[in-house]
Protein backbone atom coordinates (compact mmCIF):
# COMPACT_ATOMS: atom_id res chain seq x y z
CA UNK A 1 0.00 0.00 0.00
CA UNK A 2 1.23 3.49 -0.81
CA UNK A 3 -0.11 7.00 -0.66
CA UNK A 4 -2.22 8.96 -0.07
CA UNK A 5 -1.69 10.09 -3.65
CA UNK A 6 -4.44 12.70 -3.95
CA UNK A 7 -5.04 13.78 -0.37
CA UNK A 8 -8.19 15.74 0.16
CA UNK A 9 -9.68 15.00 -3.25
CA UNK A 10 -12.56 12.71 -4.04
CA UNK A 11 -11.16 10.15 -6.46
CA UNK A 12 -14.17 8.94 -8.39
CA UNK A 13 -12.24 6.47 -10.51
CA UNK A 14 -8.77 5.00 -11.00
CA UNK A 15 -8.25 2.71 -13.96
CA UNK A 16 -5.22 1.11 -15.60
CA UNK A 17 -4.55 0.75 -19.30
CA UNK A 18 -4.92 -2.78 -20.66
CA UNK A 19 -2.47 -1.78 -23.40
CA UNK A 20 0.24 -0.54 -21.04
CA UNK A 21 0.16 -1.82 -17.46
CA UNK A 22 2.34 1.07 -16.28
CA UNK A 23 -0.19 3.66 -17.41
CA UNK A 24 -2.92 4.47 -14.90
CA UNK A 25 -5.56 7.18 -14.99
CA UNK A 26 -7.18 8.91 -12.02
CA UNK A 27 -10.13 11.27 -11.85
CA UNK A 28 -10.00 13.53 -8.81
CA UNK A 29 -12.56 16.20 -8.05
CA UNK A 30 -13.87 18.30 -5.25
CA UNK A 31 -16.61 20.76 -4.47
CA UNK A 32 -14.16 23.59 -3.99
CA UNK A 33 -11.68 23.34 -6.82
CA UNK A 34 -13.36 21.27 -9.52
CA UNK A 35 -12.00 18.46 -11.64
CA UNK A 36 -8.47 17.33 -12.38
CA UNK A 37 -7.27 14.27 -14.28
CA UNK A 38 -3.97 12.61 -13.46
CA UNK A 39 -1.93 10.05 -15.35
CA UNK A 40 0.84 7.80 -14.11
CA UNK A 41 3.31 6.19 -16.48
CA UNK A 42 5.14 4.20 -13.85
CA UNK A 43 2.43 2.06 -12.35
CA UNK A 44 1.23 4.66 -9.87
CA UNK A 45 4.53 5.63 -8.31
CA UNK A 46 4.36 9.15 -9.67
CA UNK A 47 1.55 11.14 -11.25
CA UNK A 48 1.27 14.06 -13.62
CA UNK A 49 -1.71 16.23 -14.23
CA UNK A 50 -3.11 16.13 -17.76
CA UNK A 51 -5.80 18.34 -19.24
CA UNK A 52 -9.17 18.77 -17.59
CA UNK A 53 -10.91 21.03 -20.06
CA UNK A 54 -14.19 19.20 -20.58
CA UNK A 55 -16.31 21.39 -22.82
CA UNK A 56 -19.72 20.55 -24.20
CA UNK A 57 -19.92 20.79 -27.95
CA UNK A 58 -22.33 23.57 -28.92
CA UNK A 59 -25.25 23.83 -28.96
CA UNK A 60 -25.21 22.87 -25.29
CA UNK A 61 -28.94 22.28 -25.04
CA UNK A 62 -30.98 21.38 -21.98
CA UNK A 63 -32.01 18.37 -19.94
CA UNK A 64 -34.61 17.98 -17.21
CA UNK A 65 -33.84 18.99 -13.66
CA UNK A 66 -35.25 17.29 -10.55
CA UNK A 67 -38.26 19.57 -10.59
CA UNK A 68 -39.06 18.72 -14.18
CA UNK A 69 -37.90 22.02 -15.60
CA UNK A 70 -35.28 22.29 -18.34
CA UNK A 71 -31.74 23.21 -17.34
CA UNK A 72 -28.61 23.66 -19.46
CA UNK A 73 -25.93 21.02 -19.29
CA UNK A 74 -23.30 21.97 -16.70
CA UNK A 75 -20.06 20.05 -16.26
CA UNK A 76 -19.39 18.88 -12.70
CA UNK A 77 -16.95 15.96 -12.68
CA UNK A 78 -15.67 12.83 -14.38
CA UNK A 79 -17.12 9.66 -12.90
CA UNK A 80 -15.42 7.03 -15.01
CA UNK A 81 -12.27 6.64 -17.11
CA UNK A 82 -12.10 3.77 -19.58
CA UNK A 83 -8.76 3.25 -21.34
CA UNK A 84 -8.61 1.66 -24.78
CA UNK A 85 -7.88 -2.04 -24.85
CA UNK A 86 -5.23 -1.56 -27.53
CA UNK A 87 -3.90 2.02 -27.56
CA UNK A 88 -2.44 3.44 -24.35
CA UNK A 89 -2.98 7.02 -25.55
CA UNK A 90 -6.71 6.55 -26.04
CA UNK A 91 -9.03 6.92 -23.08
CA UNK A 92 -12.73 7.67 -22.67
CA UNK A 93 -14.25 9.73 -19.85
CA UNK A 94 -17.82 9.75 -18.57
CA UNK A 95 -19.04 13.05 -17.16
CA UNK A 96 -21.68 14.57 -14.93
CA UNK A 97 -23.76 16.20 -16.45
CA UNK A 98 -23.86 13.19 -18.70
CA UNK A 99 -21.50 13.29 -21.64
CA UNK A 100 -18.84 11.10 -23.15
CA UNK A 101 -15.35 12.40 -23.91
CA UNK A 102 -12.39 10.85 -25.69
CA UNK A 103 -8.70 11.66 -25.69
CA UNK A 104 -6.38 10.20 -28.30
CA UNK A 105 -3.19 11.88 -27.08
CA UNK A 106 -2.74 10.60 -23.57
CA UNK A 107 -5.10 13.08 -21.96
CA UNK A 108 -3.66 16.29 -23.38
CA UNK A 109 -6.93 17.12 -25.11
CA UNK A 110 -10.50 15.89 -24.63
CA UNK A 111 -13.16 15.92 -27.33
CA UNK A 112 -16.80 15.25 -26.66
CA UNK A 113 -18.49 12.45 -28.58
CA UNK A 114 -21.50 14.69 -28.82
CA UNK A 115 -23.72 12.30 -30.71
CA UNK A 116 -24.72 10.83 -27.36
CA UNK A 117 -25.69 14.05 -25.60
CA UNK A 118 -27.45 15.38 -28.69
CA UNK A 119 -29.56 12.25 -29.06
CA UNK A 120 -33.21 13.13 -29.62
CA UNK A 121 -34.09 11.72 -26.19
CA UNK A 122 -31.52 13.81 -24.29
CA UNK A 123 -33.82 16.72 -23.40
CA UNK A 124 -35.82 14.14 -21.40
CA UNK A 125 -32.86 12.88 -19.38
CA UNK A 126 -32.84 13.85 -15.73
CA UNK A 127 -30.52 13.33 -12.77
CA UNK A 128 -30.68 10.45 -10.35
CA UNK A 129 -30.13 11.14 -6.67
CA UNK A 130 -26.38 11.24 -7.22
CA UNK A 131 -26.52 13.54 -10.21
CA UNK A 132 -26.89 12.97 -13.94
CA UNK A 133 -23.74 10.97 -14.37
CA UNK A 134 -22.34 8.83 -17.16
CA UNK A 135 -20.77 6.17 -14.96
CA UNK A 136 -20.32 3.07 -17.11
CA UNK A 137 -18.29 2.79 -20.31
CA UNK A 138 -17.73 -0.62 -21.88
CA UNK A 139 -15.51 -0.93 -24.95
CA UNK A 140 -16.57 -4.09 -26.70
CA UNK A 141 -13.69 -6.60 -26.79
CA UNK A 142 -14.77 -8.12 -30.11
CA UNK A 143 -16.28 -5.27 -32.10
CA UNK A 144 -14.03 -2.19 -31.91
CA UNK A 145 -16.83 0.06 -33.16
CA UNK A 146 -19.20 -0.92 -30.36
CA UNK A 147 -19.43 1.04 -27.12
CA UNK A 148 -21.92 0.70 -24.28
CA UNK A 149 -22.55 3.44 -21.75
CA UNK A 150 -25.01 3.92 -18.90
CA UNK A 151 -26.35 7.12 -17.40
CA UNK A 152 -28.26 7.79 -14.20
CA UNK A 153 -31.10 8.42 -14.70
CA UNK A 154 -31.38 8.16 -18.45
CA UNK A 155 -30.57 4.51 -19.08
CA UNK A 156 -28.21 2.43 -21.20
CA UNK A 157 -27.06 3.34 -24.70
CA UNK A 158 -25.09 1.62 -27.45
CA UNK A 159 -23.02 2.91 -30.33
CA UNK A 160 -22.06 0.68 -33.25
CA UNK A 161 -19.94 3.28 -35.02
CA UNK A 162 -17.27 4.17 -32.51
CA UNK A 163 -19.34 6.68 -30.59
CA UNK A 164 -20.65 8.80 -33.44
CA UNK A 165 -24.29 7.79 -33.14
CA UNK A 166 -26.18 6.15 -30.29
CA UNK A 167 -29.38 4.32 -29.55
CA UNK A 168 -31.07 3.77 -26.20
CA UNK A 169 -31.08 0.08 -25.20
CA UNK A 170 -33.66 0.01 -22.44
CA UNK A 171 -36.35 -2.30 -23.77
CA UNK A 172 -37.55 -4.53 -20.97
CA UNK A 173 -36.63 -2.17 -18.17
CA UNK A 174 -39.44 -1.32 -15.78
CA UNK A 175 -38.96 1.61 -13.45
CA UNK A 176 -41.31 2.77 -10.75
CA UNK A 177 -42.14 6.40 -11.29
CA UNK A 178 -42.13 6.21 -15.06
CA UNK A 179 -45.72 6.16 -16.10
CA UNK A 180 -44.97 5.47 -19.73
CA UNK A 181 -44.82 1.73 -20.42
CA UNK A 182 -41.72 0.79 -22.35
CA UNK A 183 -40.14 4.20 -21.89
CA UNK A 184 -37.12 4.68 -24.10
CA UNK A 185 -35.22 6.65 -21.45
CA UNK A 186 -35.57 7.75 -17.85
CA UNK A 187 -34.32 4.56 -16.19
CA UNK A 188 -31.80 4.79 -13.38
CA UNK A 189 -29.17 2.28 -14.41
CA UNK A 190 -26.54 1.88 -11.71
CA UNK A 191 -23.99 -0.30 -13.48
CA UNK A 192 -23.40 -2.58 -16.47
CA UNK A 193 -21.02 -5.55 -16.67
CA UNK A 194 -19.86 -7.69 -19.58
CA UNK A 195 -17.81 -10.85 -19.93
CA UNK A 196 -15.08 -10.57 -22.59
CA UNK A 197 -15.95 -13.85 -24.31
CA UNK A 198 -19.70 -13.17 -24.36
CA UNK A 199 -19.94 -9.53 -25.43
CA UNK A 200 -23.60 -9.68 -26.39
CA UNK A 201 -24.53 -10.71 -22.88
CA UNK A 202 -24.62 -7.81 -20.46
CA UNK A 203 -25.74 -7.65 -16.88
CA UNK A 204 -27.30 -4.60 -15.26
CA UNK A 205 -27.82 -3.46 -11.71
CA UNK A 206 -30.61 -0.95 -11.89
CA UNK A 207 -32.07 1.32 -9.21
CA UNK A 208 -34.28 -1.64 -8.49
CA UNK A 209 -33.84 -4.92 -10.40
CA UNK A 210 -30.96 -6.97 -11.73
CA UNK A 211 -31.31 -7.66 -15.45
CA UNK A 212 -29.55 -9.36 -18.33
CA UNK A 213 -29.56 -9.09 -22.09
CA UNK A 214 -28.27 -11.64 -24.57
CA UNK A 215 -28.60 -9.48 -27.65
CA UNK A 216 -26.34 -6.52 -26.83
CA UNK A 217 -29.08 -4.61 -25.10
CA UNK A 218 -31.90 -4.94 -27.60
CA UNK A 219 -33.97 -6.75 -24.98
CA UNK A 220 -33.55 -7.10 -21.22
CA UNK A 221 -35.14 -9.48 -18.72
CA UNK A 222 -35.11 -9.33 -14.98
CA UNK A 223 -32.93 -11.93 -13.20
CA UNK A 224 -33.29 -10.68 -9.63
CA UNK A 225 -34.80 -14.06 -8.70
CA UNK A 226 -34.38 -14.89 -5.04
CA UNK A 227 -32.24 -11.92 -4.06
CA UNK A 228 -33.37 -10.54 -0.69
CA UNK A 229 -33.45 -7.09 -2.27
CA UNK A 230 -32.66 -6.15 -5.82
CA UNK A 231 -31.50 -2.63 -5.01
CA UNK A 232 -27.75 -2.07 -5.22
CA UNK A 233 -25.00 -0.42 -7.17
CA UNK A 234 -22.17 -2.70 -8.38
CA UNK A 235 -22.37 -5.76 -10.60
CA UNK A 236 -19.44 -7.85 -11.82
CA UNK A 237 -18.87 -10.95 -13.93
CA UNK A 238 -16.45 -13.76 -13.06
CA UNK A 239 -13.34 -13.64 -15.23
CA UNK A 240 -13.71 -17.20 -16.53
CA UNK A 241 -17.36 -18.10 -15.99
CA UNK A 242 -19.62 -15.85 -18.05
CA UNK A 243 -22.69 -17.04 -16.18
CA UNK A 244 -21.26 -16.24 -12.73
CA UNK A 245 -22.14 -12.76 -11.54
CA UNK A 246 -21.89 -10.79 -8.32
CA UNK A 247 -23.98 -8.07 -6.72
CA UNK A 248 -24.08 -6.44 -3.30
CA UNK A 249 -27.72 -5.79 -2.38
CA UNK A 250 -28.51 -2.99 0.02
CA UNK A 251 -31.67 -2.41 1.96
CA UNK A 252 -33.51 0.04 -0.27
CA UNK A 253 -33.33 3.23 -2.26
CA UNK A 254 -33.68 5.24 0.92
CA UNK A 255 -31.50 3.02 3.15
CA UNK A 256 -28.12 2.75 1.48
CA UNK A 257 -26.59 0.05 3.66
CA UNK A 258 -26.55 -3.72 3.66
CA UNK A 259 -29.53 -5.55 5.11
CA UNK A 260 -29.67 -6.64 8.74
CA UNK A 261 -26.18 -5.34 9.46
CA UNK A 262 -24.67 -8.23 7.46
CA UNK A 263 -22.23 -7.57 4.60
CA UNK A 264 -23.10 -10.17 1.98
CA UNK A 265 -22.02 -10.46 -1.62
CA UNK A 266 -24.56 -12.43 -3.65
CA UNK A 267 -23.33 -14.74 -6.37
CA UNK A 268 -25.28 -16.37 -9.16
CA UNK A 269 -23.66 -19.21 -11.08
CA UNK A 270 -26.59 -19.46 -13.45
CA UNK A 271 -26.54 -16.00 -14.97
CA UNK A 272 -29.17 -14.74 -12.57
CA UNK A 273 -32.42 -15.83 -10.91
CA UNK A 274 -30.69 -18.17 -8.43
CA UNK A 275 -28.46 -16.39 -5.93
CA UNK A 276 -26.38 -17.45 -2.93
CA UNK A 277 -25.04 -15.22 -0.16
CA UNK A 278 -21.27 -15.16 0.31
CA UNK A 279 -20.41 -14.34 3.89
CA UNK A 280 -17.20 -16.12 4.94
CA UNK A 281 -14.83 -13.47 6.23
CA UNK A 282 -17.30 -10.61 5.90
CA UNK A 283 -18.82 -8.90 8.96
CA UNK A 284 -22.18 -10.42 9.80
CA UNK A 285 -23.32 -8.07 12.51
CA UNK A 286 -23.42 -4.35 13.10
CA UNK A 287 -22.24 -3.50 9.59
CA UNK A 288 -23.96 -0.63 7.82
CA UNK A 289 -21.92 0.12 4.73
CA UNK A 290 -22.65 0.46 1.04
CA UNK A 291 -20.65 -0.62 -2.01
CA UNK A 292 -20.71 1.92 -4.82
CA UNK A 293 -21.02 1.23 -8.52
CA UNK A 294 -17.34 1.49 -9.48
CA UNK A 295 -16.08 -0.15 -6.30
CA UNK A 296 -16.08 -3.81 -7.36
CA UNK A 297 -13.66 -5.56 -9.70
CA UNK A 298 -12.42 -9.01 -10.67
CA UNK A 299 -8.95 -10.15 -11.63
CA UNK A 300 -8.06 -12.63 -14.35
CA UNK A 301 -6.11 -15.15 -12.29
CA UNK A 302 -6.97 -18.81 -12.69
CA UNK A 303 -8.93 -18.81 -9.48
CA UNK A 304 -10.75 -15.57 -10.06
CA UNK A 305 -10.19 -12.89 -7.45
CA UNK A 306 -13.00 -10.51 -6.47
CA UNK A 307 -12.44 -7.18 -4.74
CA UNK A 308 -14.72 -4.48 -3.44
CA UNK A 309 -14.52 -1.35 -1.33
CA UNK A 310 -17.09 0.02 1.06
CA UNK A 311 -18.40 3.36 2.15
CA UNK A 312 -16.83 2.52 5.51
CA UNK A 313 -13.32 2.53 4.07
CA UNK A 314 -12.60 -1.17 3.91
CA UNK A 315 -11.38 -3.06 0.85
CA UNK A 316 -12.21 -6.76 0.85
CA UNK A 317 -10.76 -9.39 -1.42
CA UNK A 318 -11.51 -12.99 -2.26
CA UNK A 319 -8.97 -15.23 -4.00
CA UNK A 320 -11.44 -18.07 -4.57
CA UNK A 321 -14.28 -16.57 -6.61
CA UNK A 322 -16.02 -15.26 -3.53
CA UNK A 323 -16.09 -18.34 -1.31
CA UNK A 324 -13.96 -16.68 1.36
CA UNK A 325 -13.04 -13.06 1.99
CA UNK A 326 -10.56 -11.03 3.94
CA UNK A 327 -10.13 -7.34 4.61
CA UNK A 328 -7.14 -6.13 2.61
CA UNK A 329 -7.29 -2.53 3.82
CA UNK A 330 -9.24 -0.79 6.55
CA UNK A 331 -9.83 2.76 7.75
CA UNK A 332 -9.73 4.53 4.41
CA UNK A 333 -12.13 7.31 3.46
CA UNK A 334 -15.25 6.06 1.65
CA UNK A 335 -14.07 3.91 -1.25
CA UNK A 336 -15.46 5.14 -4.56
CA UNK A 337 -13.37 3.07 -6.96
CA UNK A 338 -11.76 -0.36 -6.95
CA UNK A 339 -9.89 -1.67 -9.98
CA UNK A 340 -7.46 -4.57 -10.24
CA UNK A 341 -4.57 -5.30 -12.57
CA UNK A 342 -2.78 -8.58 -13.13
CA UNK A 343 0.74 -7.58 -14.07
CA UNK A 344 2.61 -9.53 -16.75
Amino acid at each position, binding site marked *: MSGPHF*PGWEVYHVNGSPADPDRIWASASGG*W*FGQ*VIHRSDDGGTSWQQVD*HDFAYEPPVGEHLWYDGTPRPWEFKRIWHLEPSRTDPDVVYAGAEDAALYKSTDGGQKWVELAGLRTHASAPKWQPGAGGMCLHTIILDPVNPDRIFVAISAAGAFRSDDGGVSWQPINRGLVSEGIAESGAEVGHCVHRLAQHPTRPDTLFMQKHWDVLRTDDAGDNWREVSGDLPTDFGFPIAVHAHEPETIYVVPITSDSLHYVMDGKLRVYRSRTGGDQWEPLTAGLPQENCYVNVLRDAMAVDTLESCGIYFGTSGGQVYGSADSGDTWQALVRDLPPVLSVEVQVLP
Partner: protein
Amino acid sequence: MIRVILPVHLRTLANVGKEVTVDVAPPVTQRSVLDAVERDYPMLLGTMRDRRTGKRRPLVRFFACEEDLSNDSPDALLPDRVAKGEEPFMVVGAMAGG
Protein backbone atom coordinates in the same frame (compact mmCIF):
# COMPACT_ATOMS: atom_id res chain seq x y z
CA MET B 1 5.43 41.17 -7.41
CA ILE B 2 2.05 40.14 -6.11
CA ARG B 3 1.94 37.64 -3.26
CA VAL B 4 -0.74 34.97 -3.48
CA ILE B 5 -1.54 32.44 -0.76
CA LEU B 6 -2.99 29.20 -2.03
CA PRO B 7 -5.03 26.57 -0.15
CA VAL B 8 -3.48 23.20 0.44
CA HIS B 9 -5.23 21.40 -2.42
CA LEU B 10 -3.95 23.90 -4.94
CA ARG B 11 -0.45 23.88 -3.45
CA THR B 12 -0.41 20.14 -4.03
CA LEU B 13 -1.58 20.50 -7.61
CA ALA B 14 0.93 23.24 -8.40
CA ASN B 15 3.71 21.63 -6.38
CA VAL B 16 4.41 24.87 -4.54
CA GLY B 17 4.48 26.11 -0.99
CA LYS B 18 1.86 28.14 0.78
CA GLU B 19 2.70 31.38 -1.01
CA VAL B 20 3.63 32.14 -4.61
CA THR B 21 4.53 35.40 -6.25
CA VAL B 22 3.45 36.54 -9.70
CA ASP B 23 4.28 39.46 -11.92
CA VAL B 24 1.22 41.56 -12.68
CA ALA B 25 1.17 44.70 -14.75
CA PRO B 26 -1.19 47.40 -13.50
CA PRO B 27 -4.07 47.58 -12.96
CA VAL B 28 -3.88 44.96 -10.21
CA THR B 29 -7.29 43.34 -10.03
CA GLN B 30 -8.66 39.92 -9.12
CA ARG B 31 -8.76 39.11 -12.80
CA SER B 32 -5.20 40.18 -13.54
CA VAL B 33 -3.83 38.38 -10.48
CA LEU B 34 -5.69 35.16 -11.22
CA ASP B 35 -4.71 35.40 -14.89
CA ALA B 36 -1.08 35.60 -13.77
CA VAL B 37 -1.43 32.67 -11.37
CA GLU B 38 -2.97 30.55 -14.12
CA ARG B 39 -0.28 31.68 -16.55
CA ASP B 40 2.51 30.59 -14.23
CA TYR B 41 0.69 27.52 -12.90
CA PRO B 42 -1.51 26.25 -15.72
CA MET B 43 -2.40 23.17 -13.69
CA LEU B 44 -4.64 25.50 -11.68
CA LEU B 45 -6.78 26.42 -14.68
CA GLY B 46 -10.37 25.75 -13.77
CA THR B 47 -9.73 25.25 -10.07
CA MET B 48 -10.41 28.82 -8.90
CA ARG B 49 -12.59 30.06 -11.75
CA ASP B 50 -14.79 28.35 -14.26
CA ARG B 51 -12.76 27.98 -17.41
CA ARG B 52 -15.47 29.17 -19.71
CA THR B 53 -17.31 31.85 -17.79
CA GLY B 54 -14.40 33.10 -15.70
CA LYS B 55 -16.69 33.16 -12.67
CA ARG B 56 -15.38 32.32 -9.22
CA ARG B 57 -16.10 28.72 -8.31
CA PRO B 58 -18.93 28.65 -5.78
CA LEU B 59 -16.91 27.45 -2.81
CA VAL B 60 -13.78 29.46 -3.50
CA ARG B 61 -13.36 32.82 -1.79
CA PHE B 62 -10.85 35.64 -2.07
CA PHE B 63 -9.53 37.67 0.85
CA ALA B 64 -6.98 40.44 1.26
CA CYS B 65 -6.20 42.92 4.01
CA GLU B 66 -8.78 41.25 6.25
CA GLU B 67 -11.52 41.92 3.72
CA ASP B 68 -13.68 39.41 1.87
CA LEU B 69 -13.34 40.40 -1.77
CA SER B 70 -15.17 37.36 -3.13
CA ASN B 71 -18.16 39.24 -4.46
CA ASP B 72 -16.30 42.27 -5.73
CA SER B 73 -16.08 42.84 -9.43
CA PRO B 74 -13.18 40.88 -10.89
CA ASP B 75 -12.04 44.14 -12.46
CA ALA B 76 -12.12 46.20 -9.27
CA LEU B 77 -8.72 47.35 -8.09
CA LEU B 78 -7.25 45.28 -5.27
CA PRO B 79 -6.10 47.08 -2.11
CA ASP B 80 -2.98 49.14 -2.57
CA ARG B 81 -1.04 47.03 -0.07
CA VAL B 82 -1.68 43.96 -2.25
CA ALA B 83 -0.56 45.81 -5.35
CA LYS B 84 2.65 46.79 -3.56
CA GLY B 85 3.32 43.26 -2.42
CA GLU B 86 2.98 44.14 1.25
CA GLU B 87 -0.09 41.98 1.82
CA PRO B 88 -1.01 38.72 0.11
CA PHE B 89 -4.05 37.98 -1.98
CA MET B 90 -5.56 34.89 -0.40
CA VAL B 91 -7.42 32.10 -2.19
CA VAL B 92 -9.49 30.17 0.32
CA GLY B 93 -11.74 27.13 0.17
CA ALA B 94 -14.95 28.41 1.72
CA MET B 95 -16.21 27.00 4.99
CA ALA B 96 -18.84 24.56 3.85
CA GLY B 97 -19.93 21.01 4.27
CA GLY B 98 -19.39 20.60 7.98
